[in-house]
Every structure is written in C-alpha cells, then in structure tokens.
C-alpha cells in the first residue's frame, strides 16, 4: 500500500426488495406483492457507517459500489447523502443470474478498477439472498484477509490497522489486522448517521458512473449465469401448520389444561 496516497475505502451495498412491499401468506403459501420497491439492504447501513467512521478518524475517500440493475443508482445516492464521497453502479444484462461466486468476481473487478484499497466493508448478509457469502468470497478475490461479524472496531498502529471484536458461536475473538482488510458488519457495531442536508444536495447532483462488463474487463465465462455454478432447481413458500387449540377457562383452568397436554407430550 503506498503510504502517501489518500486512504481508499470501499463499501459494498446491495439493493433488495423492500420487506414491506413483498409479503408472504404462510396459510396459503402464496406471495402478496404490493408494487416492488427497492431499498438498501438494512445491514449495509452499518457498513456505510463503519466506512464513514474510519474516514472521520483517518481521512479517506469512501466509494460505494453496488452491482445491480441501473436503478441501483438510488442506493448509491442514498449512501452519498450519508457522506460517502463517490459511488459506482456495476450494471450489465450479462451480470443477471449471478450467484455469490459470480458476484464476488464482478465486484472484485470493479474494486480493482478503483485502485489500491485499504479497507472494504460489507454488511453481515443481504436480506433476500441471505447467504453472507459475498464478503468472505470477495476478500479471497482481492487477496486480502477478511474478518466477519464485527461488533466493535478501533484504529490501531498509528492508523495502519484495526482491532476488531468478531462474534463467534460461543463468544468472541479480539483480532488485530493491518490494512488492507475486508470487514463484515453486525448491526450492533454502530448507529448509522442521518443524512445531512448538504450531502443530500451533493448526492442529488452527483453523476453516478455505470460500469459494464466491458468497463471492468470481465471474463464472459465468469459473470452472470455462466459464472454461477449454483442454480435454483425449485422453490416453494413454506406453510406453517399448527394445531391451533385455544385453551379455555379461567387463568387457572387454562394453565391446568396446558400442563396436562405438556405432560402427555412428555416435555415436562
């Protein structure tokens, strides 16, 4: 990493269907759609905030990157209104159908085009695909270490690295790592800031570049459907089935009825 250049931070954000506009009816197993609105993946606000915190402390240029349809531009503008300096939409019909392997390839090509990076932030997971695989996969493609599920972050070594608290199954690890590094963020890491009026104005006027497969020099075999080994074979909307027996009577009687059934089932 060249010392003299300004620090480069990238934050990856994904547009996802708004949970409010897509609803599932689990009694009938059908989808109820009420227009389709897209929003920034909720976890990615914490990635944006982490990037901005680092910028506040060390001085840096923060670039938001999203792969998606052209309208993902909206997500970039929103990130800029929070204080992100620049943004890129990586968009091409040829990217459609990407699984996480193709997504990380595409994002890594775009990030490499931005020059040397010091830190990359991703959300813990996206609420639609839900895989949490993009962060770790992207780190491999960029050849940098990855620390997942981070809930605390502190700058160390005179601004050369980070100390991170990362969640594990039975507790946590405190780890130290010098830049460059990729971090995936938990919502407990920070509270995302509210957009400022000034940044909002700037975001509104900003020209957001759209990079195609050609622009990032992507290998056609490694993007979109071609570059995606996993494919959806079939899907269904799960139905929740329940016995739904209401226990009647006074509180005492309800409790007695419950205990009787739990004893019959052998759980107490």
């Amino acid at each position: 990493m060249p010392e003299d250049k300004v620090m480069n931070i990238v934050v990856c954000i994904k547009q996802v269907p708004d949970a409010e506009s897509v609803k599932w009816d689990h009694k009938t197993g059908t989808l109820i759609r009420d227009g389709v609105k897209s929003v920034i993946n909720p976890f990615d606000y914490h990635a944006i905030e982490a990037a901005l915190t680092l910028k506040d402390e060390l001085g840096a240029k923060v670039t938001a990157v999203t792969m998606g349809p052209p309208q993902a531009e909206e997500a970039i503008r929103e990130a800029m209104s929070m204080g992100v300096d620049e943004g890129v939409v990586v968009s091409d019909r040829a990217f459609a159908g990407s699984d996480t392997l193709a997504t990380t390839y595409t994002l890594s090509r775009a990030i490499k085009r931005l020059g040397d990076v010091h830190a990359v932030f991703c959300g813990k997971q996206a609420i639609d695909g839900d895989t949490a695989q993009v962060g770790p996969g992207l780190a491999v493609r960029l050849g940098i270490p990855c620390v997942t599920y981070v809930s605390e972050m502190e700058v160390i070594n005179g601004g050369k690295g980070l100390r991170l608290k990362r969640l594990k199954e039975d507790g946590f690890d405190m780890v130290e790592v010098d830049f460059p590094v990729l971090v995936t963020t938990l919502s407990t890491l920070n509270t995302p800031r509210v957009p400022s009026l000034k940044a909002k104005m700037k975001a509104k006027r900003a020209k957001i570049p759209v990079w195609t497969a050609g622009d990032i020099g992507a290998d056609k075999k490694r993007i979109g459907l071609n570059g995606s080994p996993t494919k959806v074979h079939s899907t269904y909307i799960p139905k929740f089935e329940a016995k739904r027996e209401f226990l009647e009577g006074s509180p005492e009687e309800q409790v007695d009825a419950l205990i009787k059934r739990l004893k019959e089932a052998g759980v107490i």
Partner: protein
Amino acid sequence: MLRIDIEKCIGCGECEEVCSFGAITIVDDKARVDEESCTLCGTCVDTCPEGALSIEKEGAEELDLSSWKGVWVVSEIKNGLFSPVTFELLGKARELADARNVPLTAILMGYGLRDKADELISRGADRVIVVDSKRLSDFIDDAYARVLAHLAKKEMPEIIIAGATATGRAFIPQVATILETGLTADCTGLEIDKESGQLLQTRPAFGGNLMATIICDTRRPQMATVRPHVLKALEPDTSRKGEIVDFEPPSELLDSRIKVVESVTEEQKGPGLTETEIVVTAGRGLEKKENLKLVEELARCLDGAVGATRAITDAGWISHSHQVGQTGVTVSPRLYVACGVSGAIQHLVGMQGSEIIVAINKDKDAPIFDIATYGIVGDVKEILPILSKKICKERGLD
C-alpha cells in the same frame, strides 16, 4: 435469459405470483417478462405447470466432474468438544455417501485434537484427515480456508459440507471461492437426486419466507453449509472401524495477517438458547423490563433458556444474544413458549421448527396463534406466575 415458450403458456399466472422482483406480467393471457427487472433467479421456472419457462446458459464452461469422489464433513470444535452440528452433519453425510456408494471423510483441523478422531469414526466417518498444527489453535479465516482448499484440490471430493455456524459461514465461502465452485448457504435439507446423482440442497431465503432447492451440476465439489439442529446425528458406535490420516500443511498456507489477541468464551446463564429442548421467549407484551423476571422464572422451572424478540432486545431489556429470529438465532426446541409475542414473520422464521409452540397473548387475533400448538388468550402478568408455580410443583422444584 428467461425464455417463455408462448405456445405452451396457458396464462395461468403462477409465475407472476412467485416472482418477487415483479418481472412477469400476464398480457393477453400470456406471460411476459421484463428483462430489466428479471434477475434470472430461477424461482419461476419450476413453478410453471406447463414447462413453458426455461433459463438458458450460453457459453458456460463444461468441466469433467467424474474424477471427484467421496463425501467430506468439516468438523468443528467448541470449548474442546465437538459442536453437535458436527455429528448431525456426519449422520446425514453417511446417508449421502451410501447413496453415492463412496467413502465418508471427516476433516479435523486445529491443535492437539488427534485423539478426538475416533469419535468422528464412531459417528459415521470411514476416514478422518487430521490437520494438527499449533498455528491452527486460533480460528484464522484465511489460514483455515487455504488448508481446506489445498486438501480438496489434492483429494477431489464430490461433496463438502460444514456447519452454518459463525466460523463455518466465515471461512467456507473462502474455500468455495478458491476452488471456484458453488456453495449453498444455510441448508436445512440435503438429498441425493436418484436420477442425476446431484446433491439437492434446500435452504431458506428471503428471511425464511421462501424455500429454494439449489443444485451445483457443473462444478465440483458441491459445497453446502448446514444449519445446526436440523439434521439427526447417529448414535455413537465405538465398534465402527476407520482410517486416521495425518496431513501436514505446507507452512506458507498458515501465514495470515490476522492476529487473534484474545479469545473469550462467554459464560451462559443456564442452558444455551440453541442447545436446549425448551425455550421461553419474552416479547413486548411483558410491558416493562421488571416483568422479564416472570419469563426467567418460567424458564428456570422448565430448565429452559430465555429467548427474546427484537422489540425487547432493541429496548435494551436483555442482550442481543437472546434474540430469536431472522436477525437473531434460529431455534428448534421441543417446547417453545412465546409470552407477549405478536408473531412477526422475522420472529417466526427463527422458531417455526419448534415441536410444540405455546403462545400466551391477550389479543386472540395475534399472528403468533396461527402457528401455535396451544394458545392461551390472557394477560402474561397473570398467567405466567400461575404457570411457573404449577410447573415447579409438578417437577418437584421449590
């Protein structure tokens, strides 16, 4: 792109209904796709009763898959003991290996674990590869990933499965990327397709609202992480025989810039949320933080763990580690008691697998009752003390 065979399409609208991206509309009794919004996710293809939909790949690489053989399970150690998910994986992997008529290998990575290899054999493995190194005593994502990928390139298994735990979900995606293969996240079901021999991997997406079965038919290995507590472990059988192989990783694979400076095991009060058979969950219906003790008392009487909805973890009544649901943990105990919980979908997806669900709520129309086995319409402040007292008596506690 998504192709619609207009001849076959009867305009039934099934595809329009399942597409969560709003990419299909029915125009003049025929499906029409908006290519800008279609993400080629594949969801609609299988739902078409007429087989009118297909997604075509053009120019994808064809690789020879036949030299990849065998099933691997990546084991996981927690506090010096195998995580239960390791044995659950072995139980399922035994089935998969038998269906494919190939050996089952367990991978054991860490430090000072060699004497644990027998336990993996007793739970179904035919062979254990032990990678024992002082430099693996801490969990370091990239070092673990490089070692496993190196082994996989060398030995060429057709299937690798691991637990969808905090560590599994951290380093397994790195392995899949190094191997340039597909990885299905967070599976709840695995099956070998009888005809094609492919691994069918079923997983929830959209926060549990949709179940998708994924295949990886063009690359090897087929990789999946699997949720804890959904598969069944085999009873240990110490008479089982197997082979134990040591592998010394090239030292450069272990180099990492990540340094673990402290590793903390958090003490749990009572049994852990995902390990216990009984969970008692508190929701906003408890009205105030002080009333949380009503739930804690019932959990104590039942020897269960305390769960929480996001409403009350956000309010700071209890730590986030207790949260059940989409952004918390997934549990599937034998008994789940929801106290003053409304039953938002984000909560339901974290507990719908529970065997018996009891809901206590003063609103008889609360959605939680839709999935409850037994419902009590009432005030939690009134019901809980009676319930705790009677259960304690029943179990001979004070």
